[in-house]
């Protein structure tokens, strides 16, 4: 419902002469959440982000910001870090950040005050009078990040924010994103890095071939994609365990570790975890038992591949 959602995309269609880039995509971003936009290359993620940033207009569909129709005046409420990002190489860092902040509607003084805070926080005061081309790539990324969040937008959009970042800067960025969430910002980001999705995202939308194929809360999605796969640690004779499971359960994996064995078993719909335990209890000593919840990576691959078939 657009009334309760912070930002909604409804039935958005975008066509480029012969091909369709977005086919009736609907998405609702809850307030204060971190929302992941996932999908293989060329799925239409960047097009959708560009539509949300009003860089391109949709052919059909509507967008709502806090329940109200999204207008060009709302653009200053958004901060956008595009995938293809850069800075004027010949311009000085300070001058450039003030310029970009003012384009977002800030006054010069406001921009200067906020920039001072961030430059101190990231310990980059010394860069103020340097030209961008004198900075390393990592330094430039920090400048870009500050420019994106400086005007304290209600909605932050990061397109592939971690691409090209070294692990230290990636961590810094992740922490800042979580910080921003804590301070009440709503964050939408697209990424291929499923690890960071599990780590950061509350909700996701998965787009493939211009269509939404999966949407919802990350934990719910992972639970929904459980495949009755169980991991059992035991001591004893693996052959006996295999024999008792044989026929009714599919053995996925079996590893031996320091006298202990770990087996992964998939049950079909007739059986539950308890049934597996009942079978094994008589023949081996159970040291651990848990149901395997698929990672987002697995969900991603499974869902996208099932679409291709």
């Amino acid at each position, binding site marked *: 419902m657009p009334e309760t959602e912070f930002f909604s995309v409804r039935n958005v269609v975008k066509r480029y*002469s012969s091909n369709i880039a977005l086919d009736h995509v609907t998405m609702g971003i809850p307030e204060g959440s971190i929302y992941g936009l996932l999908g293989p290359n060329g799925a239409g993620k960047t097009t959708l982000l560009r539509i949300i940033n009003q860089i391109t207009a949709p052919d059909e569909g509507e967008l709502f910001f806090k329940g109200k129709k999204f207008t060009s005046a709302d653009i200053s409420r958004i901060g956008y870090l595009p995938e293809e990002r*850069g800075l004027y190489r010949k311009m000085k860092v300070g001058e450039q950040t003030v310029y970009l902040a003012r384009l977002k509607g800030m006054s010069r003084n406001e921009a200067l005050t906020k920039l001072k805070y961030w430059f101190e926080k990231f310990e980059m005061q010394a860069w103020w009078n340097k030209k961008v081309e004198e900075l390393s790539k990592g330094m430039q990324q920090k400048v870009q990040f500050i420019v994106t969040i400086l005007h304290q937008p209600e909605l932050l959009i990061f397109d592939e924010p971690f691409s090209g970042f070294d692990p230290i800067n990636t961590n810094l960025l992740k922490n800042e994103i979580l910080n921003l969430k804590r301070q009440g910002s709503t964050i939408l980001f697209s990424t291929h890095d499923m690890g960071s999705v599990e780590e950061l995202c509350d909700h996701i939308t998965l787009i493939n071939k211009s269509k939404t194929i999966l949407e919802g809360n990350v934990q719910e999605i992972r639970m929904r994609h459980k495949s009755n796969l169980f991991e059992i640690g035991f001591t004893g004779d693996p052959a006996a365990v295999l024999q008792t499971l044989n026929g009714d359960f599919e053995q996925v994996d079996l590893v031996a570790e320091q006298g202990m064995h770990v087996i992964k078993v998939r049950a079909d719909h007739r059986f539950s975890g308890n049934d597996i335990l009942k079978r094994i209890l008589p023949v081996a000593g159970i040291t651990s038992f848990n149901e395997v919840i698929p990672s987002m990576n697995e969900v991603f691959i499974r869902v996208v591949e099932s679409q291709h078939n």
Partner: protein
Amino acid sequence: MNKIGLIIAREYITRVRKKSFILMTFLGPVLFAALMILPGMLTTMEDTDKSTIAVVEQDSYGRPLPDSLQFFRDVIPDKENMKFVYLNNMRLQDVLKTYDADAYDGILFLSQDIISAGRETSVDFYYRKPPSLGMELHISKSLEKHIFDNKLIVNKIPVNAIQSFETKVNLKRIDWKNWQKGGEDATDIKRFLGYICGFLIYLFIFMFGAQVMRGVLEEKTSRIIEVIISSVKPFQLMLGKIIGIGLTGLTQFLAWIILTFAIAGITQQVFMPGSIKAVTEQAAPGNVMDAGTHTVQSFDSPQTESAIRDVFRQLRQVNFALVIGAFIFFFIGGYILYGSLFAAIGAASDNETDTQQFMFPISIPLIVGLLVMINTFLNPSGKLAVWFSIIPFTSPIVMMARIPFGVPPVGQILASVLLLILTFLFTTWLAAKIYRTGILMYGKKTSYREMWKWIRYKN
């Protein structure tokens, strides 16, 4: 609107602060003057290689002649880059055979027939390297004079008498409109001014148009473009860039005007630059040949002072308010027209080399404009000049060359102005469509067909 202002300010300030801009502002008038004078100076400069020419004279029966019987002996004086050696009793055939000996750079063969030749005759010149225009003129003038003087003697006409027969007639142009004030004519200076104005417009459109293109390309290759258009509309960015760079151009133009007037003022007081009049004459393409001699004569000649006074008096006749006003309008119009197209090229390209294929069709009308302008300045109300001063792609250059001559008919000016405005509105609209899509396309070479698709995209 406020955002466009920010963009304009950035484009303007970053450019005006550049060292190259400041340098160009001060050196511009000097370079420009050099550009005007240089071609004239170059034609006066012969190549410094010294050529030695053998002169072979034979009588009308083809027999060789000894020194004492040679009619043309020492007739052609040596010059610093040419030396004439008069051969004694030599047959042409024999001299021709010495080609491999490398003794002479050329052979001038004179048969005594030509002494009594009628209105026109010719002599043979055998060369290793074709003679320069200067050498050809020097040889034929010397021979002509000698034959002429001889004919006077043969016909018993005193030489000083014949000189008094000669009358050179010059056309004194009188401006009918000013006949009461003595009809002071300023055609030369107006011609010169028209040429400068037309050329400046051409130069500015190319220079600053290319800056727009490079600016767009810079934003694309540095990948800042998407950051900016998430804050402002692509059209605002394009317009801001075009206006900002245009203002840079106007600033430079105004600085040049002020500097030029300052220099002219100082010159008028201190120096003796006959060069202004000389330059006017040199600038006419038809006069290039004579230019050298004029320049040489006007320096230090007794008339120099009055010539300078003439130039400055003539300058006062030019309606500078109109010329400068028209220049600003046609610069803005032509610049927006071409600047927007240059912006579209920048947007459709990924790097400087990509731009070449699109530059070509844009350069053609500009160069045509320049060529027609050169013609215009010889005949400012000719058909060619009139039409090309109305056609919008060439009108800024050609009309600007016509305006200093006086106001062309109001209808023509109105048509030119109106068409120019309509056209730059159209090209800006067209460019905006290409720009909007082009700036987000990376790593792909754009074709015209693709551009046509972009133009038809709705948003």
